[in-house]
Each structure stands twice: as C-alpha cells, then as structure tokens.
C-alpha cells in the first residue's frame, strides 16, 4: 500500500460508490425477500402466540436469545478495531476499521430486534424504557435485563456516533469527488454535502476532531467490555447450573471479539474483491486480523477447559451432573463441536501460510461464526433444559418460525451492509492517507523543533469569508514551511487545509489543545450522577 499516492487511495476507495450493477440489485432483492419472510413469520407468531415456537417449559430462552447474544457479540470487533486499536496506535486497523464499525452498528440493530421478537407481546416493549410514566411504573434497575437495555442502548448510540464522526472527512471527500464529476445538483453530491456537515479539512477542524475522536475511542473501549459483560450477567446472575459462574463476563467478551473478528473476515474478504479494493486492503491486514484471532482463540479455549474444571472442583453435585449432561446428553454433539470450530480450527492461524491464504481465512471465519452461534445455543438452552429437577428435564428444537426469523435476521444485517458499501466510503480514507504520511512525519517533526518559539503564539481562527491569499501545495512539508514563513513575515491570521490530520501543522499554528475535553468531562460527570434533587422531589410527590 505504501507505493500508492493520496489520489490513488481516493479513487480506489470512492470508485465503488458508482451506480451498482445488476448482480448487486439481485442480491439486494434476495435479501429483501429474506427480510420479508422473517417479517411474515413474526406476524404469524404475534397472531398465533409463542406456541408456534419451540419455546416451552423449561426452555423459555432459546434461538431468539441466542441470536441476540450472537449479534451483540458480532458488534464487538468493530469497536475493538476502531477504538482499542486506535488508542494503542495500531497501524493495520485503518484499512478495515470503517467496515468493522459499520458492521458493529448493523449487528446491534439486528440484535435489538430479538428481545422484541422474544417478548411475544411486542406492543408492551416500551414498558422497559425508563420514562416518566403517568402510572408511576418505573423499570427495576436491579434486574440484569434492564442493565441489558441500558448497556445495549448505550452501545448502539455510541457506536453510531463513533462511526458517523469517523465518516465525516471521508464523506467530504465523496462530496468533492461527486461535485466535480456529477455537478452540485446530483443527489449524491447533495447527500454527501449534508452528511459531511460543511467539513473542509481546516487545521482548526482537525484539531477538535482529533481530540474528540480520541475521547470517543477512550469512552467506547470500556463500553465494549461492559456490554458483553452485562449480557453475560443475564445468565450469571441466575442460580442455574452452567450459568451461575464468575468467568462468564470475560468468557463472553473474549467470545464476542472472537466471533466479531471472524465476521469482519467473512464480510471484508468478498467486499474487497467485489469493490476492487485489493490495493488498499492487503493480505497483511487480514494476517493481522488472523493474528488477533489467535489471542481470542486461546482465551476461548481456556474458558472451555475451565468450565468443566470449575464444575468438578466446586464439588457441587448439580454443576457436576450438568457438566456430565453437556458431555453425554442430547446436547453433546453441539457441545463437542464448540472446541473443534472455535478453537482447533482457528488455531490453524498460527501457521503463516494459513493466515495469508484468503480461501482458508474465509472458510475458517465461516466455521468460527457457526461455532460461536452454536456456543450461545448450548449455553442458553443447555442450562434451561437440564436444571435441578430431573422431572423437569426436556430437550428443545427450533420450529420453522424461529428458523425463518433467524435467517431473516442475517438477511437484515447483510441488507444494511450491502447498502453501506454503495453509499459510504468503506475504507477510512483520511486514516489511510495519514498512515502513508506517518513514515515522513519524523522529518516534519524534526523541523518543528526549530520553530518552537513561533509555535507558542497561537494563530487566531479565521472567519469563513476572510479575504486573503490562498496557496496550494502538493506536499505537507511545503505547507509546513509556508506556515513558518508566513508567521515570520508577521502574518498571524492563517488557516491550513489538508486531506488528513497533520499534527505538525497544528503545532506550527500553535493550536494543539482543544476545549472539547471540558465538554466531554462535564457530560460524563453529569451522566454518572447529577440530578440529586430529582429523587427526593419524586419521593415527596408520591408520599
């Protein structure tokens, strides 16, 4: 990728936004048909009741909750790649981060359908939302299910904002490209103009943007850990054998990232080929993903070993009989498929040849996706079907309505992802360009030290209509030199424009800190505990 120019990256990433071919529309129609089938099945379920599903006593949670947990898990890798790897300054994330973020948002949307589907009486779903009810009915925040609503709802909002904010500079690039090629009244130009919010790549914008993006990453990182921990507590807070265990939170988080990384491979490998992004998304990026999966594979494998060990070591006869049931009962074929699909298959990534073979990567990612879905099914239905009372033990099998809705949910997820690939840049343009520049940054920073005295004087911000002289440069080094010369000549009211963030330019302009941090701090503190007068006021009103 290092041999590419900024222009080639721009063209390579924005070219797929051209009108789609017939095959794309056929795929979209098929996905729409899948969604329609699922919707029909859901309507049948609402009309006839939950009896059309395989749910019964004792298995009251099954495929729908499995799908919920699976799709929330899929959502995790987007934040891992974008937020966590951004914080640790990992370079390989840039090529796949935007697709992974989009996947996160669409996966949470898909996951969010299942509590409503599972509820049966979907029209009372709003009871779970904390709002000032006329009947003084408020959710009970002691319930893990309410924690789930808070965590998943927060995750959806934060992921969507994180994704959209990351897209803004790239949407501006799309706006300028379509404006030049299709004119200002083309619907795409107008769409990107609105969505890019007037982004112009000014140094004063990059400064606040860079700081805000860092805070988004810092806020999203603990959130991603909390969300699947909270989902795991839906189970771990109960007393059922197999569920009531303290390893569930890390076990679920590792599993979520494991399945999410596999889904990134599943989506990005064909996307790269169909959109002809081979020069931007290289085999090295896939190899880095596979290497990350080795870590999650080992954690998941450790959890698989630990579960039966805890059952044995605890001395609890219910835990022991449940472990035996998983190993020998009706669920055993599924149970034994888990270490095979989720550990033994992806551990093949230790071999470099496998990591650099696209067919192998794709096949393994599919198998891990299947394995991780089965893992959730085994966890959820297993404990319910084999609890403390032998006369209560029953098996479970999904009915056609559940299978149709499950397949329809996959179509729903893919439908959104297909739409994304044709409407928004699938690669983080500005990040990739910044990555290219990073190799040359050292030279720029060396020069920057010489001008430390001039950098200390902050250049005032210009009004948008300020008259002046505009110079256009091919290289950022020339821009930096021009800023210094202009400041030396006594011109302090200057603004710089660039297609990517240039910290050296911000330094030269004397604008490094951003007041956005105060906004974030105040928002976070008020979100934590403000409004102390409110509870007492409510109490007195009900007394």
């Amino acid at each position, binding site marked *: 990728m290092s041999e590419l120019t900024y222009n080639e990256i721009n063209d390579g990433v924005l070219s797929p936004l051209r009108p789609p071919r017939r095959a794309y529309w056929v795929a979209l129609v098929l996905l729409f048909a899948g969604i329609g089938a699922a919707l029909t099945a859901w309507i049948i379920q609402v009309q006839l009741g939950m009896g059309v599903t395989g749910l019964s006593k004792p298995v009251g949670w099954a495929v729908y909750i499995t799908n919920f947990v699976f799709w929330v898990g899929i959502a995790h890798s987007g934040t891992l790649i974008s937020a966590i790897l951004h914080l640790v300054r990992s370079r390989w994330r840039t090529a796949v981060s935007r697709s992974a973020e989009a996947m996160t948002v669409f996966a949470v949307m898909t996951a969010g359908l299942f509590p409503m589907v599972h509820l049966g009486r979907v029209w009372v779903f709003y009871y779970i939302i904390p709002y000032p009810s006329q009947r003084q009915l408020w959710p009970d925040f002691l319930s893990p299910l309410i924690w789930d609503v808070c965590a998943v709802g927060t995750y959806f909002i934060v992921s969507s904002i994180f994704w959209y904010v990351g897209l803004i500079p790239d949407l501006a690039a799309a706006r300028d490209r379509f404006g030049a090629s299709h004119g200002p009244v083309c619907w795409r130009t107008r769409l990107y103009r609105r969505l890019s919010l007037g982004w*112009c790549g000014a140094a004063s914008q990059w400064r606040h943007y860079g700081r805000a993006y860092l805070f988004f990453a810092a806020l999203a990182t603990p959130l991603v850990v909390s969300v699947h921990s909270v989902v795991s507590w839906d189970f771990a807070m109960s007393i059922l054998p197999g569920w009531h265990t303290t390893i569930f939170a890390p076990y679920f988080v590792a599993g979520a990232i494991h399945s999410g990384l596999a889904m990134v491979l599943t989506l990005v490998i064909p996307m790269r080929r169909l959109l002809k992004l081979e020069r931007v998304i290289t085999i090295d990026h896939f190899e880095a993903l596979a290497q990350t999966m080795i870590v999650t594979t080992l954690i998941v494998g450790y959890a698989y070993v630990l579960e039966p060990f805890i059952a044995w070591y605890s001395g609890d006869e219910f835990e022991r009989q449940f472990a035996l049931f998983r190993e020998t009962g009706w669920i055993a074929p599924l149970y034994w498929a888990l270490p095979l699909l989720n550990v033994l298959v992806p551990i093949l990534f230790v071999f470099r040849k496998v990591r650099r073979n696209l067919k192998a990567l794709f096949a393994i990612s599919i198998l891990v996706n299947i394995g991780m879905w089965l893992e959730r099914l085994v966890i959820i239905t297993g404990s319910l079907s084999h609890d403390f009372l032998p006369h209560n033990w029953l098996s479970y099998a999904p009915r056609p309505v559940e299978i149709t809705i499950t397949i329809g949910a996959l179509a729903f997820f893919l439908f959104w992802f297909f739409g994304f690939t044709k409407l928004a840049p699938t690669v983080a343009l500005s990040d990739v360009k910044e990555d290219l520049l990073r190799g040359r940054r050292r030279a720029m920073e060396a020069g920057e030290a010489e001008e430390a005295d001039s950098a200390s004087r902050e250049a005032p911000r210009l009004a948008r209509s300020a008259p002046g002289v505009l110079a256009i440069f091919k290289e950022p080094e020339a821009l930096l030199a021009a800023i210094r010369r202009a400041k030396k000549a006594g011109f302090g009211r200057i603004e710089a424009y660039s297609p990517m963030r240039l910290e050296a330019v911000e330094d030269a302009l004397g604008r490094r800190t951003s007041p956005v941090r105060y906004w974030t701090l105040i928002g976070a503190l008020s*979100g934590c505990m403000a409004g102390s007068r409110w509870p007492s006021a409510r109490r007195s009103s009900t007394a």
Partner: protein
Amino acid sequence: MHGGFALAIGSALVNGLMAGGKHPVSIIPYCIVGFEGTILCGTLANLAGVLWHARLGRPALPAGYDERFSRDRFGLLVACEPHEAGAVRSALAPCGAEDIRVV
C-alpha cells in the same frame, strides 16, 4: 440533568419495592446504570463539543476552498488586507506552491 445513578435511585424510590425488609435503593447494581450514563452522556457531550468547536453543521464551505483539499493537496490561507497581498505572495512563493491566488 438526570444521571445514571439518579435515574436508578429515583426509580427505586418511586417504586418503593421493599424485598426482605431491605431498603429499595441498592447502590452496587446501580453502578452499571451509572457507568452507562457516564459513557452515554460523555459521548453526547463530546459530539456536541466537536460540532460546536469545529463549526460543523454549516454546509457552506469557506471562501477559496478547493475540492482538492479533500483529495491530495494542502492549502494555506493567509488572511490579509488587499494591499498586503503582494507581501504574502512573496513570502509564500519560495515554498513551492502549485498555485497562489487572492480569494
């Protein structure tokens, strides 16, 4: 401003559900709600901050903006009075600018 803790504590006090003689407010589980509130409001405030300070939300682009700035070129706008334009040009000329124009 209703933070996560206030929401959870307030709800518990309104509901007033006494279980086993214990006080309806239980701080430990409310830490989850407080945490999610922290992240959510911090993110929303962060978004508001960047929108405000980066002056986003105004579709009009600044005078002299060149569409190549989002592609592969770098621009420098030096604000000056019309009679200073010559001095600015001569200051920037040695830096290898592709194009210098008055906007």
